[in-house]
């Protein structure tokens, strides 16, 4: 053969190998369907363990639609690439995972591949779940298989081109997925980086939607909220001790901070049902990460520049006086009961006003019949101009930080529309 032919053959070979490798990456075999395992075929203790892990992993949050049955999927998850609807993970044979063997389930959790071999989108954080141990995955499988089966087919995803093609996720996996269990060392770290997948919200992502491993827990956007930093960059006014963080994760209330809001509120409701020692471990892990945050110097006196803020924004002051002071002013009933002053609210101390505006617009709700923080939303009471004045007033009165460097009226308008960062 001529040299050219050798080169051609060599290139062809490389192409074939690359294609084969690519195919191997992209293509996964379908695993056989199994008969839906009967609920009583699972050991009760294993099921209970799986239930506890499901609380830690907060599966129900993403896999339950606002008006849907638990774990039956259909919840819209906005991403920079379009909207993904969570799948039904009840043991329904036709619309859920009833026909999935344990092997199929483990593959999905570890590799992000569905039973039929198709790729799952990393909106499902298998890049975290891959770290879960075999025993934990077996327990989770047992729990999910004993849930009441719900016949519910989630809506089709609405993804921008070309992300509708699942096979391209293979490239993402190649770049970003570190497969395999990671169960050694501190239980708090193992859970946080594994099933609890805290980084999925709290770590910033790159343009391809993968977590930036150089900036773990630096804070990130999720559904219009900014999940604050959970490390030395934490802007909290008071330190997050392990006890404080445990109370927050368990009850949604932190006596020296504020109430859980937005997506985190749902997480705390799940953590309320999770095993206590696991939640404590997670709390201790992050308390340690935040040990070098500025609040560690323990500023005890809450900031309250009431007069200054009133002069700077008389409108804001009037709005606060008639709309917020009933709960938030010193001497108000919530404060008599030991509620935290607004000066200790992390939302007011973030670089973005969005969390503050979210809470002002939508308030905070406890689950029906449950005792817990309740704050009405002011979407109908205040227009965007008023929200802007109020937000500016809160920042000026309760922090020593410079005013937010954004057009607050525009920000209020965007948050009201539900536009996501």
């Amino acid at each position: 053969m001529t040299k050219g032919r050798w080169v051609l053959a060599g290139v062809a070979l490389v192409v074939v190998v690359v294609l084969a490798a690519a195919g191997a990456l992209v293509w996964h075999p379908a695993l056989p369907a199994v008969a839906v395992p009967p609920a009583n075929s699972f050991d009760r203790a294993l099921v209970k363990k799986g239930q506890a892990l499901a609380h830690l992993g907060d599966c129900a949050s993403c896999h339950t639609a606002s008006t849907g049955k638990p774990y039956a999927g259909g919840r819209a998850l906005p991403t920079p690439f379009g909207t993904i609807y969570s799948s039904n993970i009840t043991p329904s044979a036709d619309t859920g995972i009833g026909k999935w063997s344990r092997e199929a389930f483990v593959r999905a959790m570890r590799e992000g591949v569905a039973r039929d071999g198709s790729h799952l989108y990393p909106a499902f954080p298998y890049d975290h779940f891959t770290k879960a141990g075999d025993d934990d995955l077996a327990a989770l499988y047992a729990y999910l298989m004993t849930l009441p089966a719900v016949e519910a087919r989630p809506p089709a995803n609405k993804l921008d081109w070309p992300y509708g093609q699942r096979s391209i996720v293979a490239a993402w996996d190649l770049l970003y997925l570190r497969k395999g269990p990671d169960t050694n060392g501190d239980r708090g770290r193992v859970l946080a980086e594994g099933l609890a997948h805290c980084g999925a919200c709290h770590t910033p992502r790159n343009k391809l939607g993968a977590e930036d491993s150089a900036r773990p827990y630096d804070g990130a956007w999720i559904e219009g909220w900014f999940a604050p930093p959970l490390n030395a960059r934490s802007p909290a006014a008071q330190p997050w001790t392990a006890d404080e963080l445990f109370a927050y994760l368990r009850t949604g209330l932190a006596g020296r901070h504020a109430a859980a809001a937005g997506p985190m509120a749902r997480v705390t409701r799940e953590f309320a049902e999770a095993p206590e020692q696991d939640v404590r471990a997670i709390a201790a892990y992050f308390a340690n990460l935040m040990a070098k945050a500025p609040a560690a110097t323990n500023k005890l006196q809450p900031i309250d520049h009431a007069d200054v803020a009133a002069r700077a924004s008389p409108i804001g002051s009037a709005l606060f006086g008639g709309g917020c002071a009933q709960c938030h002013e010193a001497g108000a009933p919530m404060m008599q009961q030991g509620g935290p002053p607004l000066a200790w609210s992390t939302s007011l101390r973030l670089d973005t006003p969005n969390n503050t505006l979210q809470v002002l617009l939508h308030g905070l709700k406890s689950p029906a019949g449950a005792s817990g923080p309740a704050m009405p939303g002011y979407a109908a009471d205040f227009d965007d101009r008023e929200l802007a004045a109020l937000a500016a007033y809160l920042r000026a009165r309760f922090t020593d930080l410079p005013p937010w460097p954004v057009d607050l009226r525009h920000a209020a308008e965007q948050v009201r529309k539900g536009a996501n960062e």
Partner: protein
Amino acid sequence: MSGLTRRSLLGQGGIVVAFTLAGRAEAKARRRDRLPGHLETYPELESWIRVGDDGRITVFTGKAELGQGLKTALIQIAADELCVAPSAIQLITADTTLTPDEGVTAGSHSMQDSGTAILNAAANVRQLLTEAAAWRLVTSSDQIVLADGVASGPGGLRLSYGELAASIPLDVEAKADVPRRDKGRRLIGEDLPRVDIPAKVSGGAAYIQDMRLPGMLHARVVRGPSDGTRLKPADIEAARRLPGIETIVQNGSFLAVVAKSEWAAIKAMRGLQAAGWERIGPSMLSTDLAKTVRGLPVEDVPIFDNPGPPAPAGARAFEATYTRPCLMHGSIGPSCAIAQWLNGNLTVWTHSQGVGPLRKSLAQLLRVPIDKVRCIHVEGSGCYGHNGADDVAADAALAAQAVPARPVRLQWMREQEHGFEPLGSAMTVELKAQLDGDGKIAQWKHEVWSNGHNGRPTTASGLLAGLEVAPPFPPQRSRPIPMPEGGGHRNANPLYALPNASGVFHFAEQRPVRVSALRSLGAQMNVFAIESFMDELASAAKADPVAYRLAHLQDERARHCIQNAADAFGWSKRKKGSGFAFARYKNLAAYCALAMEVAIDRASGGLEVRRVVAAVDSGEAINPNGIRNQIEGAIVQSLSWTTTEAVTFAPTHRTSFDWSTYPILRFPAVPRSIDVHVIDRPGEPFLGTGEAGQGPASAALANAIADAIGVRLRDLPFTPQRLKAALEA
């Protein structure tokens, strides 16, 4: 004739009518037949009914409208007997100057005490009108027909009641044997629309909170967060200088702000409360109040003791313990009062259930003679017992002392009502029974532990401010309410015919928290326990729950009520998740049987009450729709108590301070349907209905849940967490 003129009737005079006790006792001794209801205590007809020259009829009652439809029912009774349209009647309710002192509007006594009195007084007046018309028209009484305020005789001759008014002396004692009207169309038994509803659906003035008097000032009392706390010293002088503040009132640890505008008062109150607070006395050792009350020193009060042969050999023994936490009245409109001092005379407009006892307590608190105090009832929001109404009246009176001649409106805040209202006591019931070979009950023992259920003020000691003024009054003692009414032991004696049955009330006077009367008192808990236990025993006897109850019940009306409810529900064709319960309130008032069907979501512990069917026997039904309304309300409220409510505490204070920390039932959790069947018994005495539903609803729910998931819950409330835990166990 007494010194009362129409002027004084309209409240324009300063004449106070004294209903002296001494004269009463003598008159009582002279009379041979007992007069019905409170007529016995106030036998003069004019205490109850006046007929004006213009034909306008004024009816007086010492009872109060609480939203239970009392005004409408009493107007119906009077209009019915007097043969006038309801609109011809002006009803004056509880006013210490104008009306009989009928004690407290409570215990479902209003119809039995006041309704019966008015019925018979009206019958007496009708007879007097008839006789006077006969005399004036020169004919006999049986020729006179009364209709629409006019007496007609033969030949078309007529006299209006107005024309007859001067001829009928009403300062005479009622006769006991005057029969009721037996001819003509009845108003009693009709669903007469409530006379108070039109104003309430149109923004009319309907409540004490709507009163606006000339020159009125606004006040707020300033306290710590709850019963058991007090404010730390605050900067009074700074508060005095706030814009719009009229004055600050201090008396011992009692502190109130009086302002020209309501908002100024609220802001000043909050500013003072920013000073912080501290616990009064030692902190509570436990925040589990049922457990605490169970462990307190008690005195044992026997409730009932029915002798019988000992249980046969081989009898099976059963026992169960039931508990409930402290419950709150949670009136939707926090308590409010208006007080005005004029020349040393105090007038208090109040929604207190007992203007008479309140008047006495205020006189003592303010150290003035009792005839210087007048208490006038004006409707507040639903109170369901002893809430903050009396306390706020005292607060208003103290505040008003500082601004003589000016009316002062003092409104409690939501957190003050939640924080200071007397609670329904936490309780424990232990039941033991033995069943014979046929599954019938052969032995029964009921034990109940509770704090008192009556902290209503009879002296200044019963008012919050009484403990705060200088010098303070000592705390009011608490005693068990004697049977047959009972307090913590109300309804602890089952209506069932049980041999070898006894009950003991372990009464704890020492109380960790402020407690008093909450709708049905101990009956809700006792009936909840008894009716749950009956189901547990029926199950052990493998008997149908309804049949099992009937097998132990001899009271005919009770049996009829139970059968009625069961049939209306379709009990024999019931679905899984069905429960039944029955009780006769106090074994003296209305009978209530009800059946409930529920569904439970096993994953979430979510409870759905599908339907409720109830049967009620209130004797002669004055206003059937009113009865249905009361029972529907009792069922929904009891469901809220049973599934959702529990007052929470920290060792130093009450932590249930608003609706977020004391959630109650909201619309999505309300049953899909409630059907109430009223069993009307014309001619039978009126029976109080307002509290008859609380106990049966709680028990029927417990029984329905047990039927649905095979698990017996005995500790209230049945929260989703408890249901889930029960499902997982």
